[in-house]
């Protein structure tokens, strides 16, 4: 791909030079950029042919300084163009995998997998969910048993997301007491997903909701972590859902979602149906919404997680409150005992001489017997 880029740049430079020599540089440059995207060597041929023509024409003009330059340039350009053409044709088969959030674009000429979905409707409406992973050629078949009176012909049409699809109106014949509607859809990208409905003359409707497998229950409570700490943000698909091709993580910002790239601050660990985003060195700015996207061939399903970063002072406040309470309790208990022992001391003055030997410096609670006697009275 780098080689292709490099070549493209070289070719662009050449063409840009030709543009300054009074040729239609803009259109050529624009067409060259298109060339790069499609990787089509055929287009190069055409343009090359066109350029040769114009060059021939220009070389026939009365030569002046600029034109001589053009003539020399055109000779070299022919050689280079031919080489570049060869390279482009060989490079055509390289898959251009783009960075970023969208599902990988497919080769339009490869045949799509065929999938059939059908439903027989007995009432007047029904919704059917269709889970899609990869681009398919989807055949939807609707069968309706009809209402009370069964006219031989009714008008049926297809609609996508509520809007009628153009040229889809057909007349449906009653066959074996049933009406049938069938249509093939090419589901290639996320835009093609949605709700497809077959409508029988406005009386009966079957909806097929095409979607990627949805994420399970989302955690509605935010994940909490501390400044400077690291946090693990998990995301998980239900076991019953199929394994995605890969996982992507996004950060919500003002303009929408921005993909997170693994590096020093973020690391992403994917494990089939689970993924973890590890954020290091948290700052207050890291709070907010994060999205995990399970990438399937045809689209991405999103899960939402909220992260809240708090400072360590938050839990410190209740902790200090409890600490204060403990200190107050202990002080109260010890003071209560001291005051009681002082009372015992003065009350049991007779037996005090014996006990003075056993009194330690800090805490004393007086003679056990006198206090327990008081207990018994109580």
């Amino acid at each position, binding site marked *: 791909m780098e080689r292709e880029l490099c070549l493209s740049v070289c070719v662009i430079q050449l063409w840009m030079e030709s543009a300054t020599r009074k040729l239609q540089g803009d259109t050529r440059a624009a067409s060259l950029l298109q060339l790069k995207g499609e990787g089509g060597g055929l287009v190069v041929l055409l343009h090359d042919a066109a350029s040769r023509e114009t060059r021939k024409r220009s070389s026939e003009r009365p030569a002046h300084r600029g034109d001589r330059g053009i003539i020399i340039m055109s000779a070299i350009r022919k050689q280079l163009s031919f080489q570049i053409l060869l390279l482009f044709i060989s490079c055509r088969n390289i898959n251009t995998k783009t960075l970023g959030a969208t599902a990988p674009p497919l080769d339009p000429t490869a045949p799509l997998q065929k999938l059939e979905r059908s439903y027989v409707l007995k009432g007047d409406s029904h919704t059917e969910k269709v889970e899609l992973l990869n681009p398919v050629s989807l055949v939807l078949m609707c069968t309706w048993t009809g209402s009370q009176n069964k006219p031989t012909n009714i008008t049926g049409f297809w609609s996508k997301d509520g809007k009628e699809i153009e040229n889809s109106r057909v007349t449906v014949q009653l066959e074996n007491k049933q009406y049938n509607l069938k249509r093939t859809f090419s589901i290639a990208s996320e835009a093609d997903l949605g709700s497809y409905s077959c409508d029988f003359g406005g009386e009966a409707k079957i909806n097929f909701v095409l979607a990627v497998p949805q994420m399970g229950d989302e955690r509605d*409570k935010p*994940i*909490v*972590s*501390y400044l400077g*700490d690291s946090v*693990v943000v*998990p995301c998980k698909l239900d076991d019953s859902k199929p394994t995605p091709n890969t996982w992507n993580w996004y950060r919500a910002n003002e303009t929408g979602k921005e993909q997170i790239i693994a590096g020093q601050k973020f690391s992403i660990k994917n494990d089939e149906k689970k993924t973890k985003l590890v954020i290091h060195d948290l700052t207050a700015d890291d709070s907010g919404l994060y999205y995990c996207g399970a990438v399937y061939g045809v689209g991405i399903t999103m899960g939402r997680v909220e992260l809240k970063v*708090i400072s*360590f002072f*938050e*839990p*410190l406040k*209740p*902790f200090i409150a*409890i*600490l204060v*309470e*403990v200190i107050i*309790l*202990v002080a109260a*208990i*010890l003071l209560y*005992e001291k005051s009681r022992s002082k009372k015992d001391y003065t009350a049991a003055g007779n*037996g005090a001489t014996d006990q003075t030997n*056993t009194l*330690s410096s800090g*805490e*004393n*609670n007086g*003679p*056990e*017997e006198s*206090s*327990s006697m008081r*207990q*018994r009275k*109580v």
Partner: protein
Amino acid sequence: MTKNKPKAEGQRDEAEGQDGGWGWVLVGALFVSTSLVFGLMRSLGIFFVEFVQYFEESAQAISWISSTGLAAQQFFSPLGAALCNAYDARVVVMTGGCLAGLGLILASQATCLVHLYLTMGVISGLGWGLVFTPMVATVMANFTRRRALALGLGFSSIGLSSFAFNPLFQLLVEVFAWRGALLILGGLSLNIVPCGALIRPKRRSKSPEKINSESKPRASILHRVSSHLELSLLFERPYITYTLAVTLLNVGYFVPYFHLVAHSRQAGFSEYQAAFVMSAAGATDILGRVASGWFSDLGHFRLLHLLSIWTTLAGVFIMLLPVSSLSGSYPALMVISLLYGFCSGALTSLVFAVVPMIVGVARVMGALGLLQLIESGAGLLGAPLSGFLKDVTGNYIASFMVAGSFLILGTLTMATLPHYFSCKDPPPPQRPSPEDKDKSLQSEVEPSVTERSVI
């Protein structure tokens, strides 16, 4: 019943406890401290999920944290008992409370799993060990007639606090993440310190011994240490028998706690049904503790006989648990679980209350310490054994049967205690000391008089 306490004899302070007033305050202190030790330990499962995610370790590695904590608590129990014998119970409990709180506070700053083992496991475990045994021994020393009821009330806090702490911890983790939650738990654990402050310092009867042994300094240290740890108990047959019985009991006792939920799920009940069974068993556990405590104190039966009855019943119900669930009937499982809960709670409040009967009130502190240490091995053995049986046989029937049989084996061992089959409690042995040998006759007569009047 009034106690005639001759004021001169320091030993009498420890031989009898007055049932009243300050004793109930100490029961309250036991309630709070036990809930902060065992209730907290049981609810640490909430942090399990958080640790697994944050440290990215296996579930087994994380579960070692609580195993270390429990093992440390039981291992350091004799140390706590010895320190209480040597120094003041109040200081020991307050220190234990500080250590327990410190361990959790330090754990909130942990950056790797080893930190958690050391802080939440060793330091907090050491703190808990210094708290539990002294508190229990102190309460027992303060009660004679209502001992079992006091203990039952104190231990009922374990069940109640498990109910209360689970949602509380969940809330703390959601608001503050596990670091903040551990910090606040550390603060809560510091509440053990005021509980310890409520213990009144007592005169030590060991002071005469210390004076005697001053002449030979080196031998006296060993002598003192062994007397503080009450190692002489290890040579007495009644104590050894009882300890063995309690150890056997412990092997089977915890099995339902670990495996009942899994077994119910395997028998085909839903998650909620299985969890509800556990909660119901927990509720009857609390009820059983208090009820058996109250009933035992009525004095109709010997504590030892009641303990044997409850243990046998608990063993039988554990064995019936797989039978009832296999029949597929949820009410049957529920009923057996409720009965099991009641019996296991009932026996808990009596296990400790019997100890003074066997060793005498004076040596209760050391006896409890050693008992905790020895029975810790059983707890460590029980769960892996039942897990192994389950892996081998594929279901839990074998492990429940074995657990129940261990309990019945414990009862049979208890039956070999001396004077088991007599209807009255025998006089508890007095600690042999140089002074007592002179007045051995006199001291043997007096406590037996008081003890018999208890029954």
